[in-house]
Structures are given as C-alpha cells and as structure tokens.
C-alpha cells in the first residue's frame, strides 16, 4: 500500500463525510421546518376531503348513529368526529395539538374543506377531520406522552360504552398506534375479543395491541385493568427495540471505511501495475504486460503505450544485438587470418615479407569493415540531416560510371551508361555517391567475365523523381532473398570472400534518408536489377 493509496483513501473518506454531513444537515433542517409548522397534523389530501364530506353528509342527514355505523365499517380514512367536550364519537384518542389545529383550520375556512363542523341530531356539534400520520408524529414527540396519558382517562370512560355496544374500544384506541402493516388483523382481533369479554375484559383484550405500539404509546389505552400491566412497559417487538444512535453510526462508519478502502484500492491498482512494469523494465525485462488489459480509460491507454514503448525498445535492442553479433563475427575472420599470417611468419622467418604483405592486407580489410560499420551506424542514427546541398545527378553519375568502368576493366567487365539525369537532388553528395557506387560495384562483382553492367537513368517528370537502374547478368538472387539482400551482412550463397555484405545495406539507408526507395528484382533472362528512385528538387 503506497502513499497514493492512502491519499485516495483519505480523499474518498472526506468526500463521504462531507456528503453525509450535507445530507444529514438538509434532512435535519427539513424536519425542523416540518415540526415548526403548526398546520401539519391534518390530512389534507383529496381522498380525506371526500371522506370528510361523506361523513358530514351522513351526520347531517342520518344522524349520529348513522355516522357511528359508517365509521365502524370504514377501513381507511376513518374520519374523526369530536364533539365540544373533546369526545370522539368512537372513543378514539385525539392529539390535543391536532384538535388545536382543527379549530384554527375551522376558523380559516379555506378553499379546501378539510375540517367541517356539523350539528348532530343529538344537539352536539361535531368537528369532522382526519389526522395525518399521527402515530408517527406522536411517537417521536416525547412531550405528547403525558398529555395522551391524561387523555387516556377520558377515553377509558368512553371505552366501557364502546365495548358494550360490541365496538371494541380497544380496537379504536389501538388503531392509531398500530403500524400500517399490522393494521388489518391486529385491528379486528382485539375488537372481537373486546366484544365477547365485555366491560371487564375490555382493557385486557387490547393489551397485545398496546404492547405492540411502537413506542409503548398504546399503553395508556382504555380500561383500568390496563394500568397495572402497563406499568411494566414490556418492550415486545424486537424490531422496535431502540438500539440507541451509536450502533447505526458505527455500522455506517464501518461501511464507509470499507467502501473507501475498496475504492482506493481499485484506483491505485493500475498505477501499482504500471509501477511494477517500469520496475521490471528497469531490470531489463521488456516483455509486454498490459496486452490482456481491456478498458477504455486513460490508465489502460497508458499501459498500452508502455507496451508499445517496450516493444519498440525490444526490437531496437534486438537489432543492435544482432548487428553486434554479426560485427564480431565479421571481425573474427580477418583476425583469424591475421593470426594465421603471424603464426606463419613465426614458423618460417625466411618468408616474412610475404607474411607481412598478408598482414597488411588483412589490416586494410579490417579498417574498411570498421569504416563501413561506422557509416552504417551513423546512418541508422539519422546523422544524414546535418548537411544538405544541391547535387547535380548528371555529374555524380558520370563520375561513378567513369570509376566503375576503370574498375570493371581490370576484371574484364564493362559498364554501359545510358539515359540522362539532368536534375538536382537535395542531400549529401558523398553519401549518395557512395550508395550508387556500392550498387554498381555489387553488380560488377557478380557479373560473369566479359559481362556488361548497365547504368540506366530516367527522369520521371510526372512524379518529379529520378530512377536509376543498375542491371547485371550475374546469377541473380533467389526470390525469397530479394528483400534480405539489403540487410547488413547478408551474403548470397555463391558470393566470394570479398566484401562484408554491408554495401547494399548502406545504399538502402542512404537512399531512404534522401526520401527515395530501393528495390531489387530478377531480370528476365538472368541477372539482377536494382532500381533506386530519388525525389528531384522542384
């Protein structure tokens, strides 16, 4: 785990912390707003309004009994009907805050009639309204509890009546306390129980409900028998066991730490892999490492670039190694001859002059080889760009042809020049001359006795190029080797001991450095044709 990992880790942790604080703060502010708003205790939704309208109509035209019957049979939106003595029609407990708000609403007489006051047939005024999510509000609101407990007394008195009429007082009372999921069966069962047990069992019947209430709120329900039981305040549902604030906080912190570690690890992993790759490269291991990594991100690209770099380095190093190997091998032959000549001189001192001649010849040969190698090395290093001049190709080619004719004559071969080359090429005349000379010399060397080497030049005006073709009637090159002959130290199988196989390699490098190309092909009727194409000055 490097420092980068820890930086990532801390950043992610900080970000999480900031997000948590931000979100927590926002929720807290919203909560506070809600709590401070006094008009939030009533359900003001359209269905509630409809239910209230229905209840008002029932009360107005059917009377109190009709409303009672209707409310008993309602499952949802069971409208509250409270008279002036703050007694609910079904004996349900009403939050005083809600009542207060109800009165405020009634006076406001807004567009939406969520609270209505209707005169019942028993001469009492009933306020009809629907509290919203009251159990939740009250549950959190600690200060409500004592008030509710007080209210419980009044409600309990009423409960006796309810129980006798078969309407489970407990059912009504427990109802606000029941969590929504449990409301169905839980609400009906104690009601039946209460109906059968009558007065005495009214309190007993609803006990399970009271215990079930989330914060023990249902406890102060009706029925005096209840009080003793509730004194114990048994926490029933384990789901609602208060865990205290620390357990969730610890769990959240742990999860956040774990998440941060994972994320930091995920981000720092490719960087670690890259570092290992660089390490390996520093130790000379240039094998590709990211070939199988797929992915479109920048780090994957970096890995691929790294692979490309090592591949290029590898091929360069391989090339250098091969060249070094070839060079050492090429130097070995003249060295072996030198040593043999020296050995002979020791063995036969009377023949020293012949031996000396040999030694001299070998040293000249080695010097030439080293010179050619240096040229090649300089060309490969791109030293050609240094000096540029205009070269008159006609003059250069005449000079080469003259030299070649003289050289060929000593080997009973002739050189024929034809075509014109009255153009200029930008480059280095000595190198370009050497390149063409190498090709011509190679042709002379491989020509049979009395053979003819042709030096043909042609200007291609449409492409602004100069074509120089060197043709011989030698044995040619096998088709597979037509490209290989330009590699250093290549020697065809029938070559004699002269030369090191560097001439054509140098020619290729020079021509390419001048922006041209060189290629070899076998002639129809035997022999080799080497064509050089050079761009001409515009």
């Amino acid at each position, binding site marked *: 785990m490097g420092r980068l990992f820890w930086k990532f880790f801390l950043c992610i942790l900080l970000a999480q912390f900031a997000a948590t604080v931000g979100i927590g703060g926002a929720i807290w502010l919203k909560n506070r707003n809600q709590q401070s708003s006094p008009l939030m205790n009533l359900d003001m939704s359209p269905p509630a309004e409809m239910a209230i309208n229905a209840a008002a109509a029932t009360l107005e035209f059917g009377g109190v009994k009709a409303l009672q019957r209707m409310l008993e049979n309602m499952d949802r939106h069971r409208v509250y009907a409270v008279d002036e003595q703050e007694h609910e029609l079904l004996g349900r407990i009403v939050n005083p805050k809600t009542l207060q708000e109800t009165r405020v609403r009634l006076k406001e007489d807004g567009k939406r009639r969520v609270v209505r006051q209707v005169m019942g047939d028993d001469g009492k005024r009933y306020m009809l309204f629907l509290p919203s999510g009251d159990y939740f509000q009250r549950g959190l609101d600690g200060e409500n509890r004592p008030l509710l407990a007080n209210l419980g007394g009044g409600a309990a008195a009423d409960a006796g009546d309810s129980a006798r009429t078969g309407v489970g007082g407990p059912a009504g009372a427990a109802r606000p306390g029941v969590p929504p999921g449990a409301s169905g069966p839980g609400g009906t069962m104690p009601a039946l129980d209460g109906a059968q047990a009558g007065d005495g069992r009214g309190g007993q019947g609803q006990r399970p409900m009271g215990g079930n209430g989330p914060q023990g709120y249902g406890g102060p329900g009706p029925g005096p028998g209840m009080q003793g039981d509730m004194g114990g305040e048994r926490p029933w549902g384990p789901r609602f066991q208060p865990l205290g604030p620390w357990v969730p906080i610890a769990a959240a912190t742990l999860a956040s730490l774990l998440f941060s570690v994972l994320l930091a690890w995920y981000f720092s992993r490719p960087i670690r892999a890259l570092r290992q790759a660089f390490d390996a490269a520093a130790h000379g291991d240039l094998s590709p490492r990211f070939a199988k990594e797929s992915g479109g991100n920048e780090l994957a690209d970096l890995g691929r670039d790294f692979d490309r770099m090592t591949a290029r380095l590898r091929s360069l190093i391989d090339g250098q190694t091969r060249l070094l190997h070839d060079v*050492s*091998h090429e130097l*070995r*032959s003249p*060295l*072996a*001859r*030198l*040593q*043999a*000549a*020296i*050995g*002979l001189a*020791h*063995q*036969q001192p009377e023949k020293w002059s012949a031996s000396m001649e*040999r030694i001299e010849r070998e040293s000249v040969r080695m010097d030439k080889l080293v010179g050619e190698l240096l040229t090649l090395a300089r060309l490969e290093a791109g030293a050609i760009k240094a000096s540029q001049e205009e070269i008159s190709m006609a003059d250069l080619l005449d000079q080469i042809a003259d030299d070649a004719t003289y050289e060929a004559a000593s080997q009973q071969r002739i050189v024929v020049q034809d075509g014109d080359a009255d153009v200029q090429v930008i480059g280095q005349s000595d190198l370009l001359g050497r390149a063409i000379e190498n090709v011509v010399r190679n042709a002379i060397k491989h020509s049979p006795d009395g053979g003819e080497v042709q030096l043909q030049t042609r200007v291609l005006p449409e492409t602004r190029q100069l074509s120089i073709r060197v043709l011989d009637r030698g044995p040619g090159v096998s088709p597979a080797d037509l490209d290989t002959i330009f590699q250093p130290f290549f*020697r065809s*199988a029938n070559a004699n*001991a002269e030369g090191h196989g560097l001439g054509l390699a140098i020619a290729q490098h020079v021509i390419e450095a001048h922006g041209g190309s060189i290629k070899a092909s076998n002639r129809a009727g035997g022999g080799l044709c080497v064509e050089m194409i050079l761009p001409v000055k515009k």
Partner: protein
Amino acid sequence: MKSKVLLIDDDIELVGMFKEYLEQEGFEVKAVHDGEAGTAEAFTGLYAIAILDVMMPRMNGLETLRRIRTNSQLPILMLTGRGDDTDRIVGLELGADDYVAKPCTPRELTARIRAILRRAQSAPADNSQQTAITVGQLIMWPEQRRATWAGNKLELTSTEFNLLEVLARNAGRPVSKNTLSEQGLGRPLARFDRNIDVHLSSLRHKLGTIADGRSCLQTVYRLGYQLIKE
C-alpha cells in the same frame, strides 16, 4: 608416416595459411571448402583427424559433423566462434572431440591436433595391460578400442572412449575433472571449460544404469566424476 589432416572451412585464404603451417609442422593436409565435400572426404577413411569450421554457408559445420558421425568415428576438432557456447556444446554432444575458438593461433591449433592424435593413436601402444577392464556390466578392451555394456557394443567417439577408460581404471573412486582433462583430452583443464561435462553427459546416455536404477556415472560434488563399482 605423416598424419593426414582434413581441413573443412569456407575461408579459402585462411585455410591456405593453415595448410602451409601444418605442412611445415609435418602433417599432410587436404583442404575442402564446404560441408558436402568435407563429408565425402571424411568417409574415405584416409584421414587421422578432421578440422571443421562451424560457421559455413549452406551446410553448416554442425550439420556436417552430424553427417560424418553417422558413419565414421574419425576424430574431429571444431573451430567455433569465441563465445558461441551453444555451438560448442551442441558440437560436443554431436560427437566432436574438442574445439578451438576461432581467432586462434596456428600454434594452438597444431597443439590441439597433436593432443587428439596422440590420444587416438597411442592409446593401444602404451597400454601395458592387454587384458580387458571389467566394471559391472561394462567391459573395455583398450587395445582394440572396443567396449560393451551388458554384451551390447557401445558406439563411442575416441574422446568418450578415453574418458571412460580413465574412469574405468579408477572405478569406485572419484576422478577429478583436471585428471580427466589431462588424461582423456590430453590438455590441462581450462577455466570455465564445459568440455568434460558435455562428454560425460553423452557417455551417461550411452551407458546403462546400475541395479538401483541410477546412472553408473555419478557426479561427485567438488571432486569430479566416479564410475560406480558394484
């Protein structure tokens, strides 16, 4: 009688000088410049030793060596490039008797040729014991340059035979690599010389195993090699 030496090398000039030198040293020399001609000459059986360059165009030295070895136990001295360890080891495994790194003085070459010839020719002569040497399943007749393992004839090169003979005479005792080099190859052990190890490794392949399944030729750490005497 002059020993006939077969020189196989593509460097005509070099071969010319070696020829001149060796003739002055009292050898009869025939020079050929490619592997095919060399193989043909080797099969004539006229030569006491062949000197073979590993780096040759077309049929290279190792291929030539392999072909000669299919039909002849002619002692062969390889000329290898200095540092070409693989060529060297492959050559020895293919049955070359010794090697000389290529830029070599003619004197060194002559000394090596003499060492090989001395081993190959004088072995029967300076053998006082005319009887066979028997070690377990191995029976050697040095005067006939013949050896068998469990009754089967062993095809050994002369260097392998010499080394095995040294080990057999000292059977049950470890023989140092230096002793093996001096008595088997006729020259002191050079630093980093893998010659003995390669020869013994190929000997191990040719010889059988002893009763418990191990090879009869054991390497004794820091001491050398030992032929197990059962």
